[in-house]
């Protein structure tokens, strides 16, 4: 078992009820002379949490469930009202948009302050400053006051500082979603590298996609209490199911535009699973992709199937017309095809499988349907796929042994 970085026991937080100005004075008196205070509203109760080095924990829950409060307790911004939390190692927190940044000061000054707040001294800062500025990549804005920044730039700056700190524990929430596509990719890539390098992550997110992509464990908070902890897929599925039950009557109708285009995807399945839930697959296991295509004029479509990494990096794509294969005609205007990978060589990670119907010439894309695929496994290989390989000795070099 690796080192315990966070250990919370019976952690709770309650805020004092302060309605009238007299309450503040009374609270002050109680705190000063008796060391306790009175009426409280509890926002977090009895949270037990353990995070070990190298773990990645997703914190999920509805608004007001106490996620931010828990993070603030972990980062030491808040003091627990009950129980205890112990944190070892250097914590890098990126909690709210521009937290800790002073709007009147330039990006450069704010980097200096943020670095000092995270315990970097002047010499260390000078050494890392070029790296931080390069990562933030906001050009000449670095010398402008932060109040003139777009929210994306603020996030870039904040993330650049945290990234340079190489913290033992990274605590972050969805601020990353504010960045543009390229910056998000950069962040996700950085986080994956960070996790691969043994970093520990706590991520608060409403995007199950992000949580599943980056975290192996999850903790679901409901009304200030831990509803469930465990494997990320179990917890997120339970959480989504709870949400679905809450908003049951809302049935999403298929996009009306879909019915009018020449070719559209009726459905697709990965290993026979059709739901929105990601499909789990062990490394090197077979994968079967099935899809049904509707053809308005009953012309035979061409079908392209592609796999991308969750951050959008293409891995592989192939279409029926490339291989000279023809989809099966099931009924009038309905075609199907089935693509089998006997041993999918993808490395562990989260991927997206996309199905696109094309015109028979294989030129125009008409529709897209996608499913998430998660490949699980324990390997330290780099990249996206395992390339067939073997290690060998150099011919004629054996005498050096």
């Amino acid at each position, binding site marked *: 078992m690796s080192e315990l970085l966070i250990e919370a026991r019976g952690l709770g937080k309650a805020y*004092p009820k302060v309605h009238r100005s007299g309450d*503040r004075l009374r609270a002050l008196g109680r705190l000063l002379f008796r060391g306790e205070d009175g009426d409280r509203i509890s926002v977090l109760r009895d949270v037990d949490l353990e995070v070990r080095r190298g773990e990645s924990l997703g914190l999920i829950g509805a608004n007001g469930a106490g996620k931010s409060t828990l993070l603030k307790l972990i980062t030491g911004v808040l003091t627990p009202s009950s129980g205890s939390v112990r944190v070892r190692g250097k914590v890098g927190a990126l909690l709210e948009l521009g*937290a800790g940044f002073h709007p009147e*000061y330039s990006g450069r000054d704010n980097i200096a302050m943020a670095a*000092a707040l995270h*315990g970097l*001294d002047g010499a260390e800062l000078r050494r890392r400053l070029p790296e931080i500025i390069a990562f933030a990549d906001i050009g000449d804005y670095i010398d402008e006051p932060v109040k003139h920044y777009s929210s994306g730039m603020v996030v870039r700056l904040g993330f650049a500082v945290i990234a340079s700190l190489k913290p033992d524990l990274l605590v972050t929430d969805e601020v990353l979603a504010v960045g543009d596509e390229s910056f998000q990719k950069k962040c996700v890539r950085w986080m994956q590298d960070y996790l691969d390098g043994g970093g520990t992550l706590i991520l608060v997110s409403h995007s199950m996609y992000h949580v599943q992509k980056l975290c192996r464990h999850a903790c679901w908070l409901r009304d200030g209490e831990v509803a469930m902890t465990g494997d990320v897929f179990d917890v997120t599925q339970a959480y989504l199911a709870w949400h679905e039950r809450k908003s049951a009557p809302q049935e999403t109708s298929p996009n009306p535009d879909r019915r009018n285009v020449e070719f559209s995807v009726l459905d697709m399945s990965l290993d026979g699973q059709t739901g929105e839930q990601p499909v789990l697959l062990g490394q090197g296991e077979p994968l079967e992709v099935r899809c049904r295509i509707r053809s308005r004029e009953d012309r035979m479509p061409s079908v392209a199937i592609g796999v991308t990494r969750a951050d959008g990096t293409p891995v592989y794509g192939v279409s029926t017309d490339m291989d000279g294969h023809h989809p099966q005609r099931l009924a009038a205007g309905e075609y199907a095809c089935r693509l089998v990978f006997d041993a999918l060589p993808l490395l562990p990670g989260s991927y997206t499988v996309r199905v696109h119907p094309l015109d028979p010439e294989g030129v125009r894309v008409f529709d897209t349907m996608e499913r998430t695929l998660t490949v699980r496994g324990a390997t330290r290989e780099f990249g996206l796929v395992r390339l067939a390989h073997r290690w060998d000795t150099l011919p004629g070099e054996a005498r050096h042994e």
Partner: protein
Amino acid sequence: MNAMSSTTLTLRFLQREFRERFTGSLSGSAWALLQPLLQLGVYSFVFVHVFKARIPGADAPGYVPFLVTALWPWTAFSEAVLRSTTVIQNNAALIGKVALPREVLVFASVCTSFAVHVAGFVAILLVLRVGNAGIALGGLPLALMSYVPLFALALGISLACAAVQVFVRDLAQLLVQLLPLMMFGAPVFYDRALLPPAVQPWLSLNPFTFYADAFRVTLLHHGSVAWSSVAIAVAVAALVLVAGIGVFRRLDAHFEDFL
């Protein structure tokens, strides 16, 4: 957080404080010297030319050096307390989001006030010396040493006030009223010897009385300070500092709940 990074953090906050005070105002850093100079000009006009104030005794200095030696330290002290009282409240956004040793904020604020006004003090003493106003510059090291307990006193009061201000927002307004009372209750504008003998001992209850006397003894050789009162002043400053730290530590954990 280790001591080293705390130092870096303190330096950064000091840097920020200085810039906040001087880059926002029109005359920049000159304001630090200008404002007490103007104040001094007004006071010396009122007291020397309107009230014709006199300092008793044959070897008594002129009124301007007499005023300078006590008014400047007072300005450092009162400004430190006034500004630091709201420093936690003003940094609520930072405190709510980043874990940091909050006393650093108060410390940086008090340091800035003292740095500005001690520098101004030395500058004006030199100006007065050039103008031949009977300043004994040999007493300067001792005078500067008197700033140490004064700083401790200001820091202790500031820590307590900054913490209490989080809970009771009227404190800052109250201080604006109370600090002038403390000033007039100490021999800043007048000499203690001018008061009726029955009143004189009561002035010693005011912590600033010692400093007004001490600065005049060291720099003007005016009046006298007993060694016992030095000991008492240092003890009081130390006690106030310890009490201030105590109050601050006690309330520190609850700032977020009330900010």
